[in-house]
């Protein structure tokens, strides 16, 4: 039906325009910039060069890459440990499953900035945790809880925990509870049954959750900036500083495209799940 196709084209056109003009073209401009040279006062100039990508391999920047991957991996692991029992609990709950799941998601949709700030309020030297511990005479001087890698991991785990719970729940919910009973009837303790039966069967959910958490952690900017106090530099912070204070747009563009590339490679593991979403 031709009129059918025409209506569809009209409906798609604005979205296609937005995605081209405000997503694809900006990335292509970034790509072009990444092969240019910075000017003496910022800005971008010819000649075209590969220098920005060569510079990215400097040990100074490889350390930042490694730190980003490491902190994202540690955060992902903590998310998994924290989320698995929660997802199992919700999947096994007799009622209110939707409510329990929504309660996990709710904080995620409120302000990320404010949730980070809430931890800063708790953890700083004059924050509630230190004040309380001093009041109880557990410690005599504030312990540095904020502005270190540990605080960054805490912030990332707190921020992206829901991304781990959701896919785990989706997998665990589908598992037949009889499997656990069968294992127990055959002599396994509940813990052994959990480890040998439930965990292996929920591998797809574990993989999906890990990818979903790892990706935003790797590209994190706000959490290392605020919780790390500028001392923990991750790839996102490097990109930001090149585009603002350092005024080296070509190098910032190269780093941001490398970051995007890693994200896309990691995301390929998720291709099947993405088809359900969009």
């Amino acid at each position, binding site marked *: 039906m031709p009129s059918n196709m025409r209506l569809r084209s009209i409906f*798609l056109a604005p*979205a296609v325009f*937005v995605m081209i003009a*405000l997503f694809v073209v900006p990335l292509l401009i970034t790509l072009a910039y990444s092969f240019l040279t910075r000017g003496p006062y910022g800005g971008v100039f010819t000649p075209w060069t590969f220098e920005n990508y060569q510079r990215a391999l400097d040990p100074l920047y490889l350390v930042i890459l490694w730190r980003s991957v490491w902190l994202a991996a540690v955060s992902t692991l903590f998310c998994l440990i924290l989320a698995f029992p929660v997802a199992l609990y919700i999947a096994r709950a007799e009622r209110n499953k939707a409510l329990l799941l929504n309660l996990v998601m709710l904080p995620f949709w409120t*302000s990320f900035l404010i*949730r980070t700030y809430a931890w800063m309020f708790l953890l700083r030297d004059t924050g509630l945790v230190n004040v309380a511990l001093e*009041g109880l005479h557990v410690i005599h001087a504030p312990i540095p809880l904020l502005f270190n890698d540990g605080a960054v991991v805490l912030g990332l785990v707190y921020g992206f925990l829901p991304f781990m719970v959701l896919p785990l729940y989706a997998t665990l919910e589908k598992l037949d509870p009889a499997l656990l009973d069968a294992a127990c009837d055959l002599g396994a303790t509940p813990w052994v049954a959990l480890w040998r039966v439930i965990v292996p069967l929920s591998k797809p959910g574990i993989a999906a959750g890990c990818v979903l958490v790892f990706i935003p952690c790797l590209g994190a900017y706000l959490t290392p900036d605020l919780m790390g106090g500028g001392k923990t530099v991750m790839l996102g912070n490097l990109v930001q500083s090149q585009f603002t204070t350092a005024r080296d747009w070509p190098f910032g563009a190269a780093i941001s495209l490398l*970051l*995007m590339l890693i994200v896309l490679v990691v995301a390929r593991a998720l291709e099947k799940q993405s088809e359900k979403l*969009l």
Partner: protein
Amino acid sequence: MRRFLSVYAGAAYLFLYLPLAVLSAFSFNSSKIATWRGFTFDWYRSVFHNRALLEGTVNSLIIAFAATVASTVIGTLAGYALWKKRSPWLTNALYMSLLAPEIVTGVALLALFQWAFRFGHLRLGLHTVILAHISFSLVYVVIVILARLRTFDPALEEAASDLGANRWQVFRHVTIPLLLPAILAAALLCFTVSFDDYVITSLVAGVDSETLPMMIYAMARKGVSPEVNALSAMITVGLGVLILVASRLERS
């Protein structure tokens, strides 16, 4: 094991909610430091008398409203079209925009705007922030609309066209009314992600378009202030209510 799971899950929910609850509680603390000195509304009063914060709020609301209206309309149409027939190209672009780290999207848009400004005497401002917000929030609308359409019975549309309605009339008088709750849910979601955004906004905002999250960030950088606690409590409750309404609408 059941008991272990309940205790563990309880602790996890505490972990999720306690920081926000404590922050909100201390927004009523009359002392500036983290020891309880008695109840007060002073910080809320001073938030409402802070001109800069009010201007930031107005900016954030203008941006969020404009971006929400545009994204919801564009995203609903696109979601409907994608439901009729897949478009791998658009789907991939939307999916990539969802995956792209905010900082990457932000600097790419900054590069775009700076490049575009060579051809006209324009500056960064509210308009650039609005365009950026449309770009990153569109995918959320499409996801919500598609999720709703997948549970949608095509027979309803077929019945309407059998009765002589053309494609547009079917869409206008059958599909839209049935989709309305999902459209509203998508709009609320869009509004919250737009109102809350800091990273992309801070890169593409001009000097005269500072938003509320940018002000909260600046204050958080400087140190804890009870006004920020009060402001945070209000925003958290406000956005929380919007999200609860949205999830209600999505399921209805």
